[in-house]
């Protein structure tokens, strides 16, 4: 038994210590930010804070949460996630269901019609010009419409549907149910875990999206939170500030930045436990499909 050998037991102990250290390293930056956000501005500026708040205060959160620009952006982000999530889920299911049928005439070609877009795309500039020509520049639609179809999610859903026993569909069809009824009364109820997985993927992805807001919306009052955060946290170092300097100075203190970072990351941290229950299964089922 190798478990009993002395060498292995030494290795095992060291391995545990090593893995714990690595795990802590993965959340160290978040803990640090959390500690800074609850510390006094002077302690943070003097780099006295590492993993525990110094001179505990809630001041940075009070300021961030009383900033109307921040709250507006928060609301826009919620609207964006809600719209892309609901429209995206509907289209994903409606598209994946027919494509999952092996006996659909031309189904293979239709599936490739979608998959090709994963292999080749027009890139940034033609996409930008399309938004311009569609006349949805500077509207929230520019952030919503292009994101409704996500071929990766469709393929994932398609593979989930294919794992459902065919007998279920056949039984429903023999009972005289149409395809629509079969989809909504037979397939969807048994696919709830996969639907939850994809819904969480969409929500996280849309919450984190920032670049489209930056290039499509010149009106900063309809920026989603990620775009606003990008401008507050990153862009001050550059010269393309879209926010007036007074607001910027007010928001740029280290502790306030930390509270903004933490609030921006909070929704992800909240859904993460639910996410974790599903994604491992989803990833392994879809193998490395991307």
């Amino acid at each position, binding site marked *: 038994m*190798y478990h009993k*050998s002395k060498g*292995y037991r030494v290795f095992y102990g060291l*391995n*545990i210590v090593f*893995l714990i250290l*690595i*795990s802590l*390293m*993965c959340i160290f*930056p*978040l803990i640090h930010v959390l500690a800074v956000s609850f510390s006094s501005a002077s302690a943070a500026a003097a*780099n006295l804070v*590492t993993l525990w708040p110094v001179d505990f205060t809630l001041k940075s959160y009070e300021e961030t949460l009383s900033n109307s620009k921040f709250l507006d952006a928060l609301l826009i982000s919620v609207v964006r996630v809600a719209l892309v999530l609901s429209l995206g889920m509907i*289209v994903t299911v*409606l*598209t994946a*269901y*027919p494509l999952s049928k092996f006996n*659909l005439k031309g189904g293979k070609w*239709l599936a490739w019609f*979608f*998959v090709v877009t994963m*292999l*080749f*795309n*027009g*890139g*940034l*500039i*033609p*996409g*930008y*010009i*399309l938004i311009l*020509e569609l006349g949805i520049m500077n509207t929230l639609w520019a952030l919503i*419409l292009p994101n409704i179809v996500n*071929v990766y999610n469709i393929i994932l859903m*398609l*593979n989930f549907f294919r794992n459902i026993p065919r007998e279920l569909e056949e039984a429903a*069809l023999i009972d005289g149910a149409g395809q629509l009824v079969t989809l909504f009364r037979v397939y969807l109820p048994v696919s709830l875990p996969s639907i939850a997985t994809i819904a969480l993927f969409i929500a*996280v992805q849309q919450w*984190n999206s*920032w*670049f489209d807001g930056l*290039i499509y919306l010149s009106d900063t009052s309809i920026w989603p939170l*990620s775009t606003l*955060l*990008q401008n507050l*946290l990153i862009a001050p*170092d550059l010269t*393309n500030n879209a926010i007036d300097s007074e607001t910027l100075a007010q928001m740029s203190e*280290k502790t306030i930045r930390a509270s*903004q*970072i933490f609030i921006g*990351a909070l929704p992800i941290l909240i859904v*993460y436990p639910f*996410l974790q229950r599903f994604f491992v299964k989803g990833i392994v089922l879809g*193998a*490395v499909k991307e």
Partner: protein
Amino acid sequence: MNKGHSVLYFMLIPGIVLVLIFNYLPMGGLVLAFQNYKPWLGIFGSDWVGMEHFRALFSREDSLQVIWNTFVIAGMKIIVGLVVPVLFAILLNEIRQMGLKRAVQTLVYLPHFMSWVILGGILLDLLSSRGLFNDVILPMFGIGPIPFLTDGDWFRFVVIASDTWKEFGFSTIVFLASLAGINPALYEAAEVDGATRFKQTLHITLPSMVPIIVVVGTLSLGSILNAGFDQIFNLYNALVYDKGDIIDTYVYRVGILSSQFSFASAVGLFKSVIGFILIVIAYRLAYKFANYRIF
């Protein structure tokens, strides 16, 4: 023809319409790489210039540098991003306390879901000249300030290290799954023969992982031109353009910020075509050697 199949085609209409507009139309829009596109003239009114922008792409010093940077950064990310998760999965697989194993997994998967805006904001704070690293942590070891974000070579190191930090945990998932699939009888037989755990790892575990390593490695070749726009854009600055600027950030600055739409489209088209060829080759190889298919 099966009864009720027409409704199946109707279901596909919303998806097809959206893909046509938002994915296929921009592909057609790539013709502006061969034009001198002016927004006020439109695609149909702008002059045709043939391959001029591509000649510029391969003769301009900055664009050649950017292509090279992209290869170097993406290549390093692929190699490190393959080795680290494999080793980590093997080490994690040794753990027999399931609670500890789950806790480690929970923590190492987390950074994958954070956006580069959040992580970039944190890293810029930590690594700046007055940040926690240069002001507190490095002095403890007697190391002077390191120009993490202002020196090109250090910047590349930061990019590859932070990308590994963010993604290695998530990448272990497939490897852990393959480890769970190894036949225990193999280990039992080795045990009887008196093989140490290290020998077992070398002669059973690693060879069993070869197929999945080949699949992951081949498929990641398709992203040799994706050096990570979100990450670089949120970490870089003009001081590190020489070593840190990549195709995607270059296209953004040249195309959107300086409105050279046609030249930027040409750069983008070059990237898309190379990427397409590599992905197709990668999928064919993965299919041939490991019977991997998308659907």
